[in-house]
C-alpha cells in the first residue's frame, strides 16, 4: 500500500513540469489598517488581484504616479515593508458551482460553515469550480426584457400594494428595529417551490444575528435554495466592500443558466460606511457626510446588475432587495436618497407603525413599486386595485374624524373599511401567506363581507375563512393556480363560500 503511494508520487514528480513565467512584481512600501501601498507593479489594472508573499490576496483600488493602493482581503499581520507583491493579471474572482447552494461563504467565496470545500463539475478547471469576476459591466438594454413575472413575498401588504417583479430592484428602508431583515427572511422562506434561488448578503452584521438567521432558514427548509454571503462586523472593511459584488457574481452564475435569482443586500448603509473607511484610508478626498465622490457609482453599478434577460440571451433574472437603515426616519440623508433614486421603488418601514402594532410596519403612502404592478397576477390586481386608494382615504379621514363625531354614513363606512383593511394587512413574522389565500382574504375585504365583523375579530375571521374555503372553493383555487384569474363560475363559488362562512361566523 505504502509502496503504491510512493510509486504514484514518484510518477507525479517525474511528470511535473514547472512552467517558467515572468511575473510583474512590486514591493510593499507601507501597510496599515488593511491597506498596502506598493511601488513597482507597472502595467497593473484597477481592480486587479495581487498576491503577497504568504499568499494573502489584495485588490488594486488606487493607481498613483509612483505607488499602487491595495486593499488586503485576508489577515495582513504578516505583511511587512519590502515584501514582494505579484500581479495576477486577473480581476478578483469568486469560485462558483451549483454546489454553493445551501452554503455559507465569506466575501471571497470561501466556505465558512465547516462543511468542507465546495465541489464543482467544471472540467476546464482543476477544482471544478467556475470563476466569476466580481466586477462586471451590467447587461445592456438589448439583452433585457421588462419585468412581467412576480416574486411573491407571502407578505399581504407587499404582494397586494407594492408588488415585486422578477428582475426588479426594490429597496427596503427604515430605522433600526422596524423589521427590514424580517421582510427579507419571510420573502426567502416563501420561495419554496417557486424556482427562485435566494442569495442573502450580510454586510457588517454580528455573527450571532447571522447564525440565528441561518438556523431560521434551515428550520424553514430554505437553505435548499439559498446561499449566504457573509462579511461580518469583526472582519475588515475591505471584505464588507467586496461582499455585495461577490453575492451578485454568484447570482450571475445562476442567471447565466437561465435561472431566476433573488439577492438581498443587508445592508447597503454599512456597505457605504466601509467604502468610506477604505476611501479615507486611501486618501481619496471626502465629500458629503465624508463619503467619497463615487459612492453613487458604488451602489448604481451593483444594482444595475439586477435585471431580467430576454429569451435570446438565455433568460434568467436577478431581483435585488437592497436594505438601507435610516437614522431617525431621515430618508433625505445621502445614502438613502442615492439608493432610492437607483431602485425601482421602496418599501418604507416606520417605527411609529411598528409600535402601534401594525406589523409589517409598512407605510403604504410612502412605499411604491414602479414596475411591479405589471408583474402582479391578474386576480391580485383585481382585488388589490382599490386597496391602496382605500387606505389613503382612510388615513386622511382618520385624521379628520378625530375632530368630530358627526360623520355621514359614507364617511363612517369608509373609516370602518379602512380599519379592517389595516387589520387584514397585519401579519406575524415567519408566516407567509400563499397568493391564492391572499386573494380570498382581500376579495372578502374589498367586497365588503368583513364590514359586519368587529375589528378585533378580523384575524379570527380571516383564519377561519381560509380553512373553510380551502376545501369548499376548489374550483376557484384551481383557476387561480392555473390561469392566474377566476372565471364567473369560480367567482360565484367563492362568493357563496364567503357568504356561508360569514353567516356562520356571525352566529
Amino acid at each position, binding site marked *: 500500500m505504502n509502496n503504491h503511494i510512493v510509486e504514484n508520487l514518484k510518477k507525479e514528480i517525474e511528470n511535473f513540469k514547472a512552467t517558467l513565467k515572468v511575473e510583474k512584481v512590486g514591493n510593499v512600501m507601507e501597510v496599515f489598517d488593511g491597506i498596502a501601498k506598493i511601488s513597482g507593479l*507597472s502595467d497593473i489594472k484597477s481592480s486587479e488581484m495581487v498576491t503577497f508573499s504568504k499568499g494573502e490576496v489584495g485588490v488594486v483600488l488606487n493607481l498613483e504616479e509612483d505607488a499602487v493602493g491595495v486593499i488586503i482581503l485576508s489577515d495582513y499581520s504578516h505583511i511587512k515593508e519590502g515584501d514582494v507583491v505579484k500581479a495576477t493579471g486577473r480581476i478578483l474572482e469568486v469560485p462558483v458551482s451549483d454546489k454553493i447552494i445551501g452554503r455559507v461563504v465569506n466575501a471571497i467565496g470561501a466556505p465558512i460553515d465547516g462543511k468542507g470545500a465546495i465541489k464543482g463539475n467544471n472540467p476546464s478547471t482543476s477544482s471544478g469550480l467556475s470563476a466569476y469576476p466580481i466586477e462586471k459591466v451590467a447587461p445592456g438594454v438589448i439583452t433585457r426584457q421588462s419585468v412581467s413575472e412576480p416574486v411573491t413575498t407571502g407578505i399581504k401588504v407587499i404582494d397586494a400594494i407594492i408588488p415585486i417583479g422578477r428582475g426588479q430592484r426594490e429597496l427596503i428602508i427604515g430605522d433600526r428595529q422596524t423589521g427590514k431583515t424580517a421582510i427579507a427572511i419571510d420573502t426567502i422562506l416563501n420561495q419554496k417551490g417557486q424556482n427562485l434561488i435566494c442569495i442573502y448578503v450580510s454586510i457588517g452584521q454580528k455573527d450571532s444575528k447571522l447564525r440565528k438567521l441561518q438556523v431560521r432558514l434551515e428550520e424553514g427548509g430554505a437553505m435548499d435554495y439559498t446561499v449566504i454571503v457573509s462579511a461580518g462586523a469583526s472582519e475588515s472593511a475591505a471584505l464588507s466592500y467586496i461582499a455585495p459584488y461577490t453575492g451578485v457574481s454568484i447570482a450571475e452564475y445562476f442567471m447565466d443558466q437561465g435561472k431566476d435569482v433573488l439577492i438581498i443586500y443587508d445592508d447597503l448603509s454599512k456597505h457605504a460606511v466601509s467604502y468610506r473607511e477604505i476611501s479615507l484610508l486611501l486618501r481619496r478626498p471626502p465629500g458629503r457626510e465624508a463619503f467619497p465622490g463615487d459612492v453613487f457609482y458604488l451602489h448604481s453599478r451593483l444594482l444595475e446588475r439586477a435585471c431580467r434577460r430576454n429569451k435570446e440571451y438565455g433568460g434568467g433574472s436577478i431581483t435585488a432587495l437592497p436594505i438601507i437603515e435610516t437614522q431617525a426616519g431621515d430618508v433625505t440623508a445621502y445614502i438613502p436618497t442615492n439608493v432610492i433614486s437607483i431602485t425601482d421603488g421602496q418599501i418604507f418601514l416606520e417605527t411609529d407603525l411598528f409600535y402601534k402594532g401594525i406589523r409589517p410596519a409598512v407605510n403604504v403612502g410612502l412605499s411604491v413599486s414602479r414596475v411591479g404592478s405589471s408583474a402582479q397576477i391578474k386576480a391580485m390586481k383585481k382585488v388589490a386595485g382599490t386597496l391602496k386608494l382605500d387606505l389613503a382615504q382612510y388615513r386622511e379621514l382618520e385624521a379628520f374624524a378625530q375632530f368630530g363625531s358627526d360623520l355621514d354614513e359614507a364617511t363612517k363606512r369608509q373609516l370602518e373599511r379602512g380599519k379592517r383593511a389595516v387589520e387584514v394587512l397585519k401579519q406575524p413574522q415567519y408566516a407567509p401567506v400563499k397568493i391564492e389565500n391572499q386573494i380570498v382574504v382581500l376579495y372578502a375585504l374589498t367586497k365588503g363581507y368583513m364590514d359586519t365583523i368587529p375589528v378585533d375579530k378580523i384575524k379570527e375571521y380571516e383564519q377561519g375563512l381560509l380553512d373553510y374555503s380551502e376545501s369548499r372553493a376548489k374550483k376557484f383555487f384551481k383557476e387561480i393556480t392555473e390561469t392566474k384569474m377566476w372565471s364567473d363560475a369560480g367567482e360565484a363559488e367563492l362568493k357563496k363560500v364567503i357568504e356561508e362562512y360569514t353567516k356562520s361566523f356571525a352566529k
Partner: protein
Amino acid sequence: MVLGEALLRTVLNFMTTLSNNDIAQAIYLTSKDKTGHELALSLKNVVSFLHRRRLLNKSEEILFSLNKIINDEKGVKIAKVSSANKLHEQNKKEIIHLFKKRYLAKDVIIEEKIEENLLGGVKIEINNELIDLTLKNRIYKLQEYLTTKYE
C-alpha cells in the same frame, strides 16, 4: 539649462502639490550636463528648495525617482539577482546579454545578493518583473500542483 531652471521655478511657483517624480524630473533637468562649480551651485539650489518647501524628509524617495530617471535616460537597467551561491562570471555575462536584448537596454547592471534559503538557482528582479528560477520556487510549485490535484 535655462529650460531646466525655468521648469524648477515653475514647479516652485505654481504647483501646490508636487509628486516626488515631478521634483526628481526638475532636478534632473537643472543639473543635466553640468559639471564642477555649476553643478555644485545647482545642487545647492535644489537642497535649499527642498528645505524651503519642507521636502527634505522625502529626499530618499526623490533620490530613488532621480536614479530611475537617470537610468531610463541612459538606457541602463538594474537587475537584482539573488542566488544561493555566488554567480560565475560567465553566468553574469549571459544574464547581461539576455536582458540587453529583452529590454533593448544599453547596459545592464547586476546587483548580486546571496540568499541561502533559495537552495539553488537564481531569482532575477528587473524592470518590475520577476523571473524566479530557484529550487525553492520549483518545490513550492510542485507542492501547489500536488495539493490541488489530491485535494
